[in-house]
């Protein structure tokens, strides 16, 4: 069989198997839209603020009361957090060493420097390869997430703006599968034993 003939056959096979199952996606639009509409809309902070401050036909005093009350709540919570941080200053929780609970579960810190990234997530055998987002709250390009893990061996990789990044410098070892590297950490009886 010539290459062109084989490529045509491959094209028609892939097309035919999709067409044979097309009934499964007949109402995909409706199902996706229904799920989107069922999810509560999440407003970004500036959209929320803009809505709060938008001109209305109601009383401006009422709006100011809402803003004032919100500011007071933020101030109260902020003071609580800062006093708590000062109390715990001698033993900060942010550590590369896992923090172990009584049942053997450990809070394992995943850290990745990604200066220009907009989104960093970790996927692995501990979250069924579903994304857990890392955060970079101070904007210094160091992304972190703390995940409770029971003792065992875990394969994982980072997704930097959707791109696979399988070689974590903090991993115990690397494995190669599906043509790419993944990282491995041992929790409890392995490399993270402390």
């Amino acid at each position, binding site marked *: *069989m010539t*290459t062109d003939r*084989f*490529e045509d*056959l*491959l*094209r*028609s*096979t*892939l*097309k*035919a*198997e*999709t067409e*044979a*199952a*097309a009934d*499964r*996606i007949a109402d*995909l*639009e*409706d*199902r*996706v*839209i229904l*799920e*989107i*509409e069922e999810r509560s*809309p999440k407003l970004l902070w500036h959209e929320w603020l803009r809505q709060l401050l938008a001109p209305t036909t109601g009383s401006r005093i009422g709006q100011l009361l809402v803003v004032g009350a919100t500011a007071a709540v933020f101030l109260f919570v902020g003071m609580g957090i800062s006093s708590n941080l000062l109390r715990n200053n001698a033993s900060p929780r942010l550590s590369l060493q896992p923090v172990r609970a009584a049942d053997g579960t450990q809070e394992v810190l995943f850290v990745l420097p990604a200066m220009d990234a*907009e*989104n960093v997530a970790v*996927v692995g*055998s501990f979250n*069924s*390869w*579903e994304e857990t987002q890392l955060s970079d709250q101070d904007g210094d390009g160091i992304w972190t997430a703390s995940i409770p893990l029971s003792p065992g061996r875990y*394969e994982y990789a980072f*997704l930097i*703006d*959707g*791109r*696979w990044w399988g070689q974590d410098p903090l991993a115990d070892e690397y494995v190669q*599968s*599906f*043509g*790419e590297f993944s990282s491995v950490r041992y929790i409890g009886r392995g490399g993270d034993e402390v």
Partner: protein
Amino acid sequence: MYRAQDEVSLLRASLQGDTSAWGEIISRYKDAVFGLCLGFLRNRADAEDLSHDAFIRAYVNLRKYNLDRKFSTWLFTIAANLCRNKLRYRRNHPTGEMPLHLQGGKDPAKVIDKEDQHAQIQQALTQLPYSYRAPLVLRFYNDLSYREISEVLSIPEGTIKTRIHRGKIMLKELIEKERDPA
């Protein structure tokens, strides 16, 4: 009503919360995304679930989409990542699901019919390693260029060319082996 509109207008409307505009985007791309997932995963139920998830995830992350980038490539990247994660999950949680070439539709006896070339290729695709199958599906179902495939799979373009070339040879070998097991 959206038929005449260009894709960028639909995406902008979707970003403003217009779900009917997003519905039009789904209509335009659902066959491509479903075919990608089916080709990668070789299972209809999983392909259906992941096509659904891909459009949800794309909508939720639409703010991160850069208009300079081709939308289809961005959408296929999301679908491909979901498929890859599903395959990793399957490797750790084997279920003994029926492979695609035996899932409904056709008489199972026909699958081993040596004249049924589609069935033979389907069976060979199921046996082909994912790292070779994925570039073949993107090339011959989604009609992507080598550069676009490289972008979707985050693999260098040279590696993609090698895998497509090697993948075709492996497919032919698998078909020959099936025809003549001895």
